[in-house]
């Protein structure tokens, strides 16, 4: 029974495909998967915008949106209908294009942003046997399409002919390039251990249990460090606080999409959130066991529930961080990426190799943990050396 619920979407799709002639089956199969992604993830986006506003509101000791429910009824749903008026508002707003703007590039930028982000979902395993395109080089595909986002950010920033847009775009590109390296290097450890770039294979390797506990990579020393590095880099890649310099409202208005309004602005917003979900999904797949359950006793819960549950948990952490941490300065951002995360990621690769070749016993835990801890202490001290960090003194007007 649990098995049937687990595979309900797969069987449903096979059932639907049965009604389609043989020649059209690949096409219809692809269309069905695309439709599912196009309906599920924007739906999650709509919910997350409300949850984020409410969560930030709670953190800042206010209520957040709590009025809008189902239209034309008295049902309020604690304000979870807020995304409907938000969507209507952004769709019906006037689309303003600056007169000096480069019209074609300005028009194309949001599309170039959204297409690669949606493509990235093709390789993520959402559940058991639920990968849309099971590429042999799936991980490489994910990072490759992620690179195209930088082009769109530049297009948006440059074509607007606005200094804030260009500044935001330059900040965003410098940040994305810098954090892409620790991101990829932390994923390399997983590839080394699994021996495959195929994401389904990576999940399959973590789908084993000893003493009832899953073999998630986050439960190993190198995996924990890799996950933390990946997590920080993914915060930066999705331009989230504390790495939200590209769209720092108090400095450069809205960064590279300052000059966008209406539907195009909504597309950027959507693209940014979908990119965030995709990169979180990749992090889950690489380190948190994808669709597997943490305990052997809980395997009866369907696989997609685990995937989306983990997604929701990490999105919550993202919102929590946004409500808690202040924004970094540009030099702090670069120092963190180049002087701390990059060396640590490189050392982590060596640690993963040692882990792979040492015998399965307690000494490898000791050696690997000691290596990582030593590297962390040395690098952290190096990062903090030239910063005169003392107790902050305040001067008040007498």
């Amino acid at each position: 029974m649990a098995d049937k619920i687990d595979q309900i979407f797969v069987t449903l799709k096979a059932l639907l495909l049965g009604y389609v002639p043989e020649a059209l089956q690949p096409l219809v199969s692809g269309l069905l998967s695309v439709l599912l992604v196009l309906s599920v993830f924007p739906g999650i986006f709509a919910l997350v915008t409300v949850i984020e506003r409410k969560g930030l509101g709670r953190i800042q000791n206010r209520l957040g949106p709590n009025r809008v429910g189902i239209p034309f009824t008295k049902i309020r749903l604690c304000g979870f209908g807020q995304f409907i008026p938000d969507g209507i508002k952004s769709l019906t707003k006037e689309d303003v294009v600056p007169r000096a703007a480069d019209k074609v590039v300005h028009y194309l930028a949001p599309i170039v942003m959204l297409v690669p982000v949606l493509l990235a979902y093709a390789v993520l395993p959402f559940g058991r046997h639920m990968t849309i395109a099971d590429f042999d080089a799936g991980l490489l595909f994910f990072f490759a399409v992620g690179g195209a986002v930088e082009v769109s950010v530049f297009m948006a920033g440059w074509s607007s002919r606005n200094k804030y847009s260009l500044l935001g775009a330059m900040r965003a590109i410098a940040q994305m390039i810098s954090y892409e390296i620790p991101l990829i290097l932390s994923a390399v450890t997983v590839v080394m251990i699994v021996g495959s770039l195929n994401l389904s294979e990576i999940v399959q390797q973590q789908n084993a249990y000893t003493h009832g506990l899953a073999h998630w990579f986050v439960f190993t020393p190198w995996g924990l460090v890799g996950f933390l590095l990946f997590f920080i880099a993914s915060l930066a890649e999705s331009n989230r606080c504390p790495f939200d310099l590209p769209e720092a409202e108090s400095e450069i208005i809205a960064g590279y999409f300052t000059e966008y309004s209406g539907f195009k602005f909504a597309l950027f917003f959507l693209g940014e959130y979908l990119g965030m979900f995709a990169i979180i999904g990749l992090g889950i797949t690489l380190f948190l066991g994808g669709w597997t359950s943490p305990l052997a006793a809980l395997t009866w819960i369907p696989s997609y529930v685990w995937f989306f549950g983990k997604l929701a948990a990490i999105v919550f952490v993202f919102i929590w961080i946004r409500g808690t941490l202040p924004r970094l300065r540009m030099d702090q951002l670069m120092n963190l990426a180049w002087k701390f995360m990059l060396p640590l990621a490189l050392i982590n690769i060596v640690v993963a190799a040692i882990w792979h070749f040492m015998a399965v016993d307690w000494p490898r835990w000791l050696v690997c943990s000691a290596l990582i801890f030593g590297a962390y202490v040395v690098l952290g001290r190096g990062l903090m050396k030239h910063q005169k960090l003392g107790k902050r003194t305040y001067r008040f007007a007498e």
Partner: protein
Amino acid sequence: MSLSLIILAFVTLLAASAAMSLRNLVHCALALAVTFAGLAALYLNLDAQFVGFAQILVYVGAVAILIVFAILLTRSGDTPNEAVLAPGWISGIAISAGVFTVLGWAVLNSKALPSSGTLSLAPAATVKDIGKVLMEQYVLPLEVIGLLLTAAMIGAVVIALKEPSKSSSSRGDEAQIKKTEQVEPSHVGSYVGEKKGAA
């Protein structure tokens, strides 16, 4: 010869011509990114999956961005008013047309091209196979590439570093202006250089 190949080739060649003929340099760089993506799609069409993805990762994600950065750092982002072609451009076009004619003639009339196996099944080139060959048969070239990338990284950083101002006495004001202008470019340039090496 499939329809997808023709369409992809058309898009790629059109974008390549645009990249070489548009007046605005940023438009050229964006057309270049389209060319690279089209080439990657052509590789995928030829069943070279790994190379196609690597092409997008390196060229669209890094080289195109690098070129865009260079365009902005040399302040050539605006459409130029003067001529964009070199004085002897007619002979240049003629020579390149000649090159294409010779190459095309050779391709169409060569007897050395393998004619059999043109419709064979896609050869298997999994990542595992590529990795194995790379680590066994081609390990020396791999090491040399690593050395080359390190050298390129160091070289790019050294070239793009801020020059020490030597003419402080004779052209004081001008040097001062130059210096203030140079602060940002050298900064960004070195980041870009570092990125290339590490990628």
